[in-house]
């Protein structure tokens, strides 16, 4: 029973990380049909910058913000400087973003080296505690991570559902050309959404570097999981990203604990099943 609870909590922790990483990826995918293969690199960049900021200032909160802002700027630059010039040509964008992700990975390897980093936790988040009711001990940072993902998810949902900017994004997901014909400069909106996606990825990177650790390769790991989450949950949907992240995170951990040999297959089995039964994703909307 204890094992089951711990595995479930680990699954939720992973799901929280996957959600933070995938929600921005999903927004970009849903709005622009751009498969941003540099999304993992943005996450890793955020993690590294966050580590350096914490190292320099000693403030974890500043590190999370710094990592988020750095990745947001990098994301906006990727869209403004490169991908925006090939709008509508999704294949070329995808290939260009793979190139960008390789270049970024090499630059980061050059600057931060090939070692594994773990962000030093503030006192409040270090250590663990025994959870009431469940009766198992669990690391504070992982609990905080779940809380952080929850807050970020709600904030994102409010932004998308309740603000004018969010309405414009939803309109763009529904019908880009019509939004342009109503006077919206779609390229500027794209840059903003890329920045938003980068912000989420960057913060996820710092949190991942705190709860787990980051190293070269972390970028691809999160890129892959984001792809799976978006395929399972449905593109452009925050709820879909949350649901997809939950399924993938839990499947990965249950698989690891109870069927280590076949664990990796679980995630992809879910993906194949969803593609077969509901190709637009569990909460995605079918193309009109």
């Amino acid at each position, binding site marked *: 029973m204890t094992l089951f609870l711990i595995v479930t909590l680990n699954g939720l922790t992973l799901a929280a990380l996957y959600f933070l990483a995938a929600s921005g990826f999903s927004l970009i995918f849903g709005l622009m049909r751009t498969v941003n293969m540099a999304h993992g690199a943005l996450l890793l960049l955020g993690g590294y910058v966050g580590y350096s900021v914490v190292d320099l200032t000693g403030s974890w909160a500043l590190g999370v913000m710094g990592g988020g802002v750095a990745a947001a700027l990098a994301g906006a630059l990727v869209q403004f400087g490169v991908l925006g010039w090939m709008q509508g040509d999704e294949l070329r964008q995808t290939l260009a973003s793979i190139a960008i992700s390789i270049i970024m990975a090499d630059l980061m390897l050059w600057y931060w080296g090939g070692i594994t980093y773990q962000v030093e936790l503030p006192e409040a988040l270090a250590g663990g505690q025994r959870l009431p009711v469940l009766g198992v001990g669990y690391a504070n940072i992982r609990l905080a991570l779940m809380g952080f993902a929850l807050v970020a998810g709600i904030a994102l949902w409010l932004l998308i559902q309740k603000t004018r900017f969010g309405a414009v994004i*939803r309109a763009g997901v529904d*019908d880009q050309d*019509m939004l*342009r*014909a*109503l006077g919206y400069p779609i390229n500027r909106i794209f840059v903003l959404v890329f920045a938003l996606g980068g912000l989420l990825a960057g913060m996820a990177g710092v949190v991942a570097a705190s709860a787990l650790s980051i190293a070269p390769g972390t970028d691809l790991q999160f890129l892959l999981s984001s792809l799976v989450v978006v395929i399972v949950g449905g593109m452009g949907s925050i709820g879909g990203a949350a649901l997809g992240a939950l399924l993938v995170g839990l499947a990965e951990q249950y698989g690891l604990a109870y069927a280590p040999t076949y664990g990796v297959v679980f995630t992809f089995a879910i993906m194949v099943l969803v593609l077969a039964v509901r190709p637009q994703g569990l909460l995605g909307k079918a193309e009109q």
Partner: protein
Amino acid sequence: MNRCMKFISGAHMATDALLEIRGLDLRYGSSHVLHGVDLNLGDRPLGILGRNGMGKTSLCNTILGLHPNSAGTIRFDGVDLSGLAPEKRASMGIGYVPQGRRVFRSLTVEEHLKIVARKGGAWTIDRVYETFPRLKERRRNLGNALSGGEQQMLAIGRALLLNPRLMVLDEPTEGLAPAIVSDVVKLIELIAQEGIAVLLVEQNLHAALASVKDVAIMVGGEVVERMTAQALEEDTAMQKRHLGLEPGQAG
């Protein structure tokens, strides 16, 4: 390309036209959709008629900049629109009510209006609600929960909020019940009375003749006839030749 018909239609074109299209060509891969379209539009509402697949919707999309034209020019209020993005053209005062209405399925009626509304124009959200009380009743409903007629009101309402000087309407009566069609006809009259130039693409001959003063007929990606609505109404042979209508058929 230059047929005598075009010289004739060119002869009575006003020079101070709000929209001036010259030699407009559109190619889609290997298909040639528009062949040197010439068209002037001033104060008098203009209907564009023609059978399916004659390039009417492509013409609208090209005017809005959603398709880049391969040759020719479009001038709006004297400004050459070449290379201008759709959003730029919209803010210059071209409102678009597209075929199939294309309301946003995940936006409520109110959100549709909010994202377009600007301060200081003749059209405000309140005025749209006054004009379409039904939209006010349904303001919390999503775009895809509306009936066809309601979607059409919304598509027209959101275009009006741009405070356009030209309104391009692409088959606004398509798929609507006859009673609603006459509402839309009245609405187009109202738009024209507001001093907004109207370019109306229609399959429904009677709706078109009731809402516009002039008509142009498109065949195979070209404008082949231009006349007053009244002249077309009386010329059943012409209707039959270009629109495939037997006399008295509604279309």
